[in-house]
């Protein structure tokens, strides 16, 4: 039973209860009723208080049985309550039973007065778990490690290694003195796989660790009443039924139903995207728990307002809170493969396909040529090893992590290495508004006085308030703004820039305080000079705020009454209006002007406040007059209207530029917000998401004065769609909407709908980036191809779900991300092209060896020294290459058409440059043999004699005779020569890969210094191998004569010249046959 109660009460996902008890509010919890219930053993002392139900969609969570616990109940109401409880006992008990029959399992009852007993709390804690979000499931480290061990080419190399050992095993059985070569090779392959695996794992782990340290949360404390005592406990230990106290500035420790509250406002922006703080009281106001005033949500914050205190009962903890539910919705969204992962997989498939098919083809050929099957297997392994770029995946990882580092320096923290590239291929950005595009704080945007609208500076520092401040009206208005305000700076912040100072007060008062501080200077000093004698704070019935001050002018003994509030309310109270510092009667035309201005500012999605003042006549109100705020013994009508002021959560100043850049990069920017459509549209317009000259269907209708239905939908470029409209749309309609409008704003959307929008975009084959900071964004962040969370304002849920975090909350960092992503994609292409090229030069020796019987030109182990030795640093160096052209002016790549490794790249690398390289390397090889006595023609079909251990007097072209070991040594010299030949040409290959289209000379041969480090490393490694380790037999290197290092140079130059020609023709004849076939 208790378990059932837990399940029902805890999860709003419980099925709809058949009969919600009472339309609004089920009976007040009664002690007696509770006691009667306690007879049911499993119920303990808890009785029904609240009932929640949930449909699948989170925002339609319905709140059927929110009880009205009256304010009284809080402190002094305890006794009354008891009496009342007893009085109603009979009736209530009956009703309760009835209710419980229907909803028993969804319910909890408690004694509000004593709180829970610690034992019961401990029980509940044990039952429901701690009040914390379950962290997203981590893949066990060992699994991650094993994945690295078998991913990519590893499996192919494992097979090779095992085949090597098997081959040796068979050889050993037939001939115990068989050479250990294949054991070496197998071991080397295994070591290579393990090392590259460990390396990749280490790289991954390193980038994940940055994240882990970043996400550390500060343990939260909560004030709770337990055992009739106030206690401070870690918020994690809260359980359902706990009574908690909240002060201004606190983070709400769980989902809480308020029992009493005073002057509290909560910032729900992370949950709903609304930029304005919501006031909270104990009244039940709405069926929807998100809207109702008496529920506050886990992880939202209570605004720092004077005397804000609240008491409430915990109704949901941990994963069962709204936040927890959204978070679990996010974790339920599968992790899609990143585009670059898909590309790498595609590339691995191509290379592995080529390797295996060439391997098997030559295995069959070898068997047909009467080779021993065992030898054929060794050939197969060699071909696979030659074809697989062993070092490439490690190189790609390094290149990605280099970019990640570079991005981190530019304040883009990448959680998942592969996400580095994703922004580059992004074609749609779905951006949240509040906190992402906007600063997430109210700021004064416009003023209206002297019948004129002035624009205030809304940029982050606000310092440049350039509107005309000479008018007398402004002097009066500024005084009202400064005086009629209860917000104050926290002391001790003199050195902090005004905009960054912490203020005690609600959002709009804060905005006004900062605004006047910037323009007038020390507001506190002004207030001191104009001593306040009385004030009436803002409340929702009055809709105004008023205060009366002594003036700073010692000669003026009049009192100044200042008032601000809802514009229409203020206007009602006025009979005059101030124009150019002079009071004028408020006539109809002025009232009309006021309305126009009010509508205009309201239409901008701004919150408008009216200001008026009145100098109380000194004769009626002498200095000694005693003002009383209760009785209001002073005039509150026939005042003088001074002006309007409007506030908005303004866009971040860098956003419009970033949006433009995204546009020119072919990226569609869509706004998806939980905020109101008017505000959303206004912000969209001001940041350029809806461009200046585009109109929505509604705009056209308004302009042409026709009905919305009559407008040709094709005329509208922009669309503003609300969550309500979206709800009624079929996926096809959404697709059509997304495809037809270049500028779209979604407003009033729920987390689920954000998810739907992202999915809709993905159906268009777009790579979708989602930016957001709130919990409500987290499912969409997870679903997106790349989720970008804000680092400063972002909630932990958003950060957890995101792949990338903007540490400075700067939307324009996304542009950096796009740029870096596109660059790394281009550069990876270059890296891969560079690495693939030599595969042909590595493969040909084996093919020629099998078919034409030359002494083996290069050994398998030597190959690995190219792949994992000389080629590593150069291929990483290509990641440092600068962009060839303005990558921000081209369209994002098409996910399915513009592949990382396309046919052109493979063909050009394999069949053009690769082949040239092979010829160059063969030239060095033939030269070495010829100059030692074996002319090229004599080498053909020499293999059997050459490889025979017992033939120790093989005659060369000059009549000299060679022992087996002497030949072997010559063969190793051949390996070294071939190796050097490839290395020298890889230098040319490296240089040509710097660009794909531009001439190397345009790109600058020396701009990327790392390339030269790479070239130096190639040469040094080769020198070390040849001269340093030349005496170690197992490595098969010998000391090569100096002149052989230069034999392949002409081929290297040829490669360079050929590629320059290729690029030249591509530039000369864009779109031609050449361009189509040669541009990769």
């Amino acid at each position: 039973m208790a378990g059932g109660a837990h399940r029902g009460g805890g999860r709003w996902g419980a099925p709809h209860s058949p009969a919600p008890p009472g339309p609004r509010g089920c009976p007040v919890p009664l002690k007696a009723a509770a006691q009667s219930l306690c007879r049911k053993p499993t119920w303990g002392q808890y009785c029904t208080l609240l009932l929640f139900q949930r449909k699948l969609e989170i925002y339609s969570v319905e709140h059927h049985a929110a009880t009205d616990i009256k304010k009284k109940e809080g402190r002094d109401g305890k006794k009354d309550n008891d009496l009342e409880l007893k009085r109603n006992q009979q009736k209530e008990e009956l009703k309760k039973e009835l209710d419980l029959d229907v909803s028993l399992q969804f319910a909890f009852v408690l004694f509000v007065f004593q709180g829970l007993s610690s034992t019961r709390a401990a029980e509940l804690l044990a039952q429901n778990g701690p009040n914390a979000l379950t962290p997203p499931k981590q893949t066990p480290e060992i699994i991650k490690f094993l994945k690295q061990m078998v991913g990519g080419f590893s499996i192919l190399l494992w097979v090779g290694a095992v085949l090597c050992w098997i081959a040796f095993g068979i050889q050993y059985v037939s001939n115990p003195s068989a050479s250990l070569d294949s054991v070496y090779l197998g071991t080397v392959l295994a070591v290579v796989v393990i090392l590259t695996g460990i390396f990749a794992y280490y790289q991954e782990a390193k980038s994940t660790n940055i994240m882990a340290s970043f996400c550390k949360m500060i343990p939260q404390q909560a004030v709770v009443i337990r055992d009739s005592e106030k206690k401070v406990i870690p918020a994690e230990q809260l359980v359902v039924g706990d009574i908690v106290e909240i002060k201004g500035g606190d983070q709400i420790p769980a989902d809480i139903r308020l029992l009493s509250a005073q002057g509290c406002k909560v910032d729900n922006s992370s949950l709903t995207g609304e930029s304005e703080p919501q006031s909270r009281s104990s009244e039940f106001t709405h069926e929807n728990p998100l809207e109702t005033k008496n529920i506050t949500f886990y992880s939202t914050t209570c605004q720092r307002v004077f005397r804000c205190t609240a008491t409430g009962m915990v109704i949901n903890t941990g994963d069962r809170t709204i936040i927890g539910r959204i978070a679990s919705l996010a974790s339920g969204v599968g992790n899609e493969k990143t585009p670059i992962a898909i590309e790498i997989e595609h590339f691995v498939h191509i290379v592995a396909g080529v390797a295996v098919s060439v391997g098997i083809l030559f295995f069959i050929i070898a068997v047909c040529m009467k080779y021993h099957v065992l030898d054929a297997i060794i050939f197969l392994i060699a071909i696979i090893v030659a074809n697989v770029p062993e070092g490439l995946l490690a190189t790609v990882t390094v290149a990605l992590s280099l970019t990640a580092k570079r991005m981190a320096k530019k304040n883009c923290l990448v959680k998942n290495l592969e996400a580095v590239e994703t922004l580059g291929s992004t074609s749609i950005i779905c951006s949240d508004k509040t906190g992402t595009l906007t600063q997430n704080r109210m700021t004064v945007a416009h003023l209206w006085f002297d019948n004129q609208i002035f624009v205030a500076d809304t940029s982050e520092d606000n310092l440049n308030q350039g509107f005309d401040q000479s008018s007398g009206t402004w002097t009066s208005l500024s005084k009202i703004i400064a005086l009629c305000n209860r917000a104050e700076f926290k002391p001790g912040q003199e050195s902090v820039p005004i905009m960054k100072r912490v203020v005690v007060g609600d959002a709009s008062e804060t905005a006004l305080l900062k605004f006047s501080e910037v323009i007038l200077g020390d507001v506190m000093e002004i207030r001191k000079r104009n001593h306040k004698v009385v004030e009436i704070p803002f409340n929702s019935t009055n809709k105004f705020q008023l205060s009366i001050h002594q003036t700073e002018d010692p000669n003026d003994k009049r009192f100044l009454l200042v008032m601000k509030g809802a514009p229409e309310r203020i206007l009602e109270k006025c009979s005059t209006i101030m124009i150019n510092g002079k009071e004028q009667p408020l006539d109809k035309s002025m009232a009309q002007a006021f309305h126009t201005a009010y509508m205009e500012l309201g239409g901008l999605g701004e919150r408008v406040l009216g200001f008026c003042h009145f100098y109380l006549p000194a004769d009626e109100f002498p200095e000694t007059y005693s003002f009383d705020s209760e009785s209001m013994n002073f005039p509150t009508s026939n005042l003088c209207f001074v002006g309007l002021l409007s506030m908005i959560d303004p866009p971040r100043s860098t956003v419009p530029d970033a949006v433009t850049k995204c546009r020119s990069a072919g990226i569609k920017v869509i706004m998806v917000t939980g905020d109101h459509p008017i505000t959303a549209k206004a912000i969209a317009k001001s940041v350029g998401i809806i461009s200046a000259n585009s109109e929505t269907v509604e705009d056209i209708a308004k302009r042409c004065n026709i009905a919305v239905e009559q407008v040709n939908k094709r005329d509208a470029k922009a669309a503003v769609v609300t969550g309500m409209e979206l709800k009624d749309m079929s996926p096809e309609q959404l697709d059509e909407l997304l495809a037809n409008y270049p500028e779209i704003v979604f407003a009033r959307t729920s987390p689920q709908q954000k998810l739907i929008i992202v999915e809709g975009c993905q159906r268009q084959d777009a790579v979708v980036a989602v930016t957001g900071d709130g919990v409500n964004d987290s499912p969409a962040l997870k679903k997106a191809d790349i989720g970008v969370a804000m680092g400063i304002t972002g909630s932990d849920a958003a950060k957890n779900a995101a792949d990338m975090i903007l540490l400075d909350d700067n939307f324009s960092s996304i542009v950096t991300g796009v740029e870096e992503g596109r660059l790394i994609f281009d550069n990876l292409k270059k890296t891969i092209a560079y690495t693939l090229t030599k595969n042909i030069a590595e493969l040909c020796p084996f093919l020629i060896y099998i078919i034409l019987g030359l002494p083996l030109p290069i050994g398998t182990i030597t190959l690995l020294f190219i792949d994992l030795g000389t080629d590593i640093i150069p291929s990483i160096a290509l990641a440092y290459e600068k962009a060839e052209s303005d990558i921000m002016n081209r369209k994002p790549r098409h996910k399915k058409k513009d592949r990382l490794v396309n046919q052109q790249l493979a063909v050009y690398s394999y069949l053009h440059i690769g082949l040239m390289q092979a010829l160059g390397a063969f030239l060095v090889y033939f030269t070495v043999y010829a100059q030692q006595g074996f002319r090229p023609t004599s080498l053909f079909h020499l293999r059997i004699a050459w490889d025979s251990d017992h033939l120790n007097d093989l005659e060369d072209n000059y009549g000299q005779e060679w022992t087996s070991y002497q030949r072997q040594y010559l063969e190793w010299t051949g390996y070294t020569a071939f190796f050097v030949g490839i290395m020298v040409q890889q230098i040319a290959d490296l240089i040509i890969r710097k660009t794909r289209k531009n001439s190397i000379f345009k790109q600058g041969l020396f701009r990327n210094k790392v390339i030269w480090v790479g070239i130096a490393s190639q040469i040094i490694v080769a020198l070390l191998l040849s001269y340093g380790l030349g005496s170690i037999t197992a490595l098969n290197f010998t000391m090569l004569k100096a002149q052989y290092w230069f034999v392949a140079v002409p081929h290297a130059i040829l490669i360079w010249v050929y590629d320059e020609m290729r690029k030249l023709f591509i530039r000369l004849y864009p779109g031609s046959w050449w361009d189509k076939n040669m541009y990769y």
Partner: protein
Amino acid sequence: MTKKEKKSFNQSLAEWKRFIYNPTSGEFLGRTAKSWGLILLFYLVFYGFLAALFTFTMWVMLQTLNDEVPKYRDQIPSPGLMVFPKPLSALEYTFSASDPSSYRGYIEDLRKFLKPYTLEEQKNLTVCPDGILSEQKGPVYVACQFPIFLLQACSGMSDPDFGYSQGSPCVLVKMNRIIGLKPEGTPRIECIPKDENVASISTYPNNGIIDLKYFPYYGKKLHVGYLQPLVAAQVIFSANSTKKEVTVECKIDGSPNLKNQDDRDKFLGRVAFKIIARA
């Protein structure tokens, strides 16, 4: 998304068919006939060019070579030793004195090999003075005679079966030819049976001497008719030994510049072979 990606077998088959031949665009394997023509033409020209270029560079490389002497001889500073005839596998001579077919192959090989050493073949060669290097300046290089009788019992003159029929087989030991090699001291081949109780070895010429007059060698092209010096080793099994199986190790001795102790090269200045004489 996933629905779209999962194609039915028929669909993918149709797609493949369309890839192989697309009747609407006339594409075969993704290219039209014209496109194929162009691409083939391109590769014909490109590869033709590459082939010509490679041939040219190879030709240039061959120009650096000398017909008479290889450019470098640093990889063979010291000669290897090798035996003749060559057994089919490994260096194991298995024969049976009573079964001529078991050794016919060896005898034929030996005869063939010794043919240039017959007196008629050598009559155009020079008789060189013993014990000194016959260094020559050219342009004509003469070869020294190696009279076959120096091999005595193993010359094939007195015993056409080279001792095989008597169970005392002859094996020729020869030093690899290396152009310009000038042995120092008095090089000789010394052959020792591993187990002296089983067999003894006779070497011919006496003491296994290799005369310096056969050195240096001037190469196949210049040194026409050059005969390399041979040493014959005859294995004589002890009469009282029942075991007719012996491993013989031969090495060059007496010359400080001819190595015979290399760790890795088991044939540098030495050779080991096994004789198994069956009943």
